[in-house]
């Protein structure tokens, strides 16, 4: 892993909402062609971390470096134009727009002409055929899994270097979740760096290269996915010494 592979580096990040500091000390790295998974319980600060990386929330302390440059106060829409594409949790597609409109809007940041975007849309249809079949229907008419694929397709339209996915498996049936995970995995091959936030620990560990676990706004565990043990993970999840569930589970 050479240093020039590094896409995104987050160091000692602090962020939150107003005076509610949710994230106190988070560090992580994403490299091109790899998947970094960010794990942690509910309310640990995962989504807030992503919001700070993408510029939706202000950074109170620490640093976010993207492509070797400090991002500082760069506004969200500029970060998208620099190749940072974020799929928010809860399948946030535009429900009132059609699938094709959603995808076109996904390519907005590339500043391409509509004709060029329509070609790019075709590629997405090849990757997610179901989207092509329903192209002129409103996004609200699709099922949860399809909307998730649309959201990912929309993010890909921006020709990103870094793809950030917030709980793509949330609320999906196991079979569909598996399909989504496979799709995400196959994206690695294109050289894309992926930052994945997940609740589904096992499934996401299987496709990840790097793991970072958050607890109460701090990175409590980080390292290569291949070396993680369940015990380590539970300890990182439920706090340090008095981790009752970890003990229970280990029995």
């Amino acid at each position, binding site marked *: 892993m050479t240093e020039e592979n590094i896409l995104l580096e987050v160091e000692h990040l602090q962020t939150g909402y107003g*005076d*509610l*500091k*949710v994230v106190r000390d988070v560090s992580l790295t994403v490299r091109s062609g790899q998947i970094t998974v960010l794990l942690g*319980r*509910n*309310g640990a600060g995962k989504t807030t971390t992503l919001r700070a990386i993408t510029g939706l929330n202000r950074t109170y302390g620490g640093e976010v470096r993207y492509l070797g440059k400090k991002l500082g106060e760069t506004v969200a829409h500029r970060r998208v134009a620099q190749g940072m594409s974020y799929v928010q*949790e*809860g399948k946030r597609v535009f429900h009132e727009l059609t699938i094709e409109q959603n995808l076109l809007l996904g390519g907005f940041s590339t500043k391409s002409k509509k004709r060029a975007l329509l070609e790019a849309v075709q590629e997405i249809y090849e990757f997610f055929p179901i989207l092509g079949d329903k192209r002129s229907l409103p996004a609200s008419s699709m099922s949860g899994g399809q909307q998730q694929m649309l959201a990912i397709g929309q993010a890909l339209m921006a020709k990103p270097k870094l793809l950030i996915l917030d*709980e793509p498996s*949330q*609320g999906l049936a196991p079979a569909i979740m598996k399909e989504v995970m496979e799709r995400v995995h196959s994206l690695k091959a294109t050289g894309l760096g992926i930052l994945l936030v*997940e*609740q*589904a*620990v*096992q*499934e*996401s*560990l*299987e496709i*990840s290269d790097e793991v970072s676990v958050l607890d109460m706004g701090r990175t409590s565990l980080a390292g290569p*996915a*291949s*070396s*993680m*043990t*369940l*015990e380590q*993970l*539970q300890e990182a*999840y*439920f*706090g340090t010494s*008095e981790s*009752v*569930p970890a003990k*229970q*589970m*280990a029995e």
Partner: protein
Amino acid sequence: MLALWLKIRALPTWALPLLLGIVLLLLPSLGMNYGMTRQVILTLLLALIVSGLNLNLGYAGELAMGHIAMYAAGAYTAGLIGKAGITEIWVQLLVGALAALVVGLVSGVPGLRLGGWSLAMTSFFLILLIPDVLSIFKESTGGRNGLTGIATPTLFGEPVTENQYYVLVVVIAILWFAFMRNVVVSRHGTAFQVLKQSPVLASSLGISVFRMKLSAYALGAIPAGLAGVLFANLDMFISPEAFTFTVAMTVLAASIFGGSASVYGALVGAGVLQFGLNQATNFQEYGLIITGGFLLFGGVLFSGGIAGVGQKIVRKLDYKAAEQAGRSKGSSAENAVADVEVLQGANLSVQTVSKAFGGNKALSQVSLEAKPGAVTAIIGPNGSGKTTLLNMISGYYETDEGVIALDDLQIQGQPSYKVARSGVSRTFQTPNIPKNLSVIEAVESGRYSTQRASILQAVFRTPKFRRIRREDRSEAQRVLNLVGLGSQLNADADSLPLGNRRLLEVARSLIGSPKVILLDEVASGLDEDELDVLADLILRLREAGLTVVIVEHNFQLVLRLADVIYVLAQGSVMAHGAPAEIEKNPRVMEEYLGIVSDSDGTSLVGA
């Protein structure tokens, strides 16, 4: 300098305005000429209408310009009954105010259900209709030509002289402003502030948003009606010209400039617009531009108006004086931890409740039981329906099916303010604390619906009102001591640090002697010490017999506090039981960790 300030502050707040009133009364005998007298009268009439608008805009938080229609109603009522021979001014004032009140109620009932832009536009439209309505009844109103031949008003049968009329106007203005001041400086004023800034919070405190807004609107009709009567008798002539859109804009500009959320700001605003501008040369030409400028820049630059600026200065001086007097935080920090009295909890039972938004099932067949003297915790991943469930219990959403009951009382389908009055109180994920309230006022607002004292009782400061006010104080002090904020009674509630704002919310939810208390992620953002205070408090509330429901992410805290834990996943209860059982439940761990629990603790991947 500060010593002088302290002396001024030692006077009651109504002393200065009363002094102003007395000076105004004496002005004619000091040789004020006719033109000047007329200006003062017109200023006071404008101030009355502005004051009515302020109750609405500044306190209830709705922009409704119907006051010009109420003003017209008062004026034409007085003109018509004056022509019919009823010239006694007291009778006219009474009838005029009633007529304005009727207009207020009739236009307010539909208008206030809408709120926001719809209400504003509807009420502007009302002004547009004034000349049409007058024209329809032109036989009696004179239509667009105006109503002439109004008889000279009488007082106890004697015709009123010019000087007497001046005194009359000043006295009525003094009376109204005393009335307004007594409403605003009371629990009702605090309730209005709460309502304006957060209707959601208001209803969780048992305040009926609609009724409260309507009463502000209706009360505001009174000064507008009085002003109308006084206006009709000033020139003995009225025409639709006096009730135009432009006049409405002047009223609004005066309100914004003087400060809508203040009692005496109306006088300042009316004074500036009536005196300052009318004296300026070329007012006719530039009048509209200046009025517009007041609205535009008043709205952008100082949202509190002149009064807002004044209030800020007063607060700053108060703070400095307090610092100098050595009454700063540290010295009075003796935090007597109060005892919790015995509380009468109620059994909260949720039976097979379901809720869908559009096609999404948010909750399906959820059943839950929270007992008095126990802490019931609800946990679950994001989007599992925890907050939805809480919102259903407090009546913000209607249930699609199922029953929610407090002991034997079914509360599903009740509006939230009624649920609150039945004894369910709550805190919010993001602390919901109105601006410009002190800590103790913010907490007292939680008693608004449990102990009632009507607005009229506040106006006349009746013994009952005084007793309730004393109880509000002592109860607020008590619950603030419970949460450890007892030493910060007069601090600005909204600018407390996050942890203290959460504790303040807990105090506010306790003051109304609830039967059930719902705490929504009350621990998030608290530091260790605050967490200990909170945990200790929750346990003491449980001892005291309250029904406590917590929604919480902090698993450690839940294990420490809860008697029963319910785990929600994708809208239904996945497991429930004692903490020890939940800990061992493999499915819960799976939901939380997403790990299949038969794993043997070795490497998870690459196998």
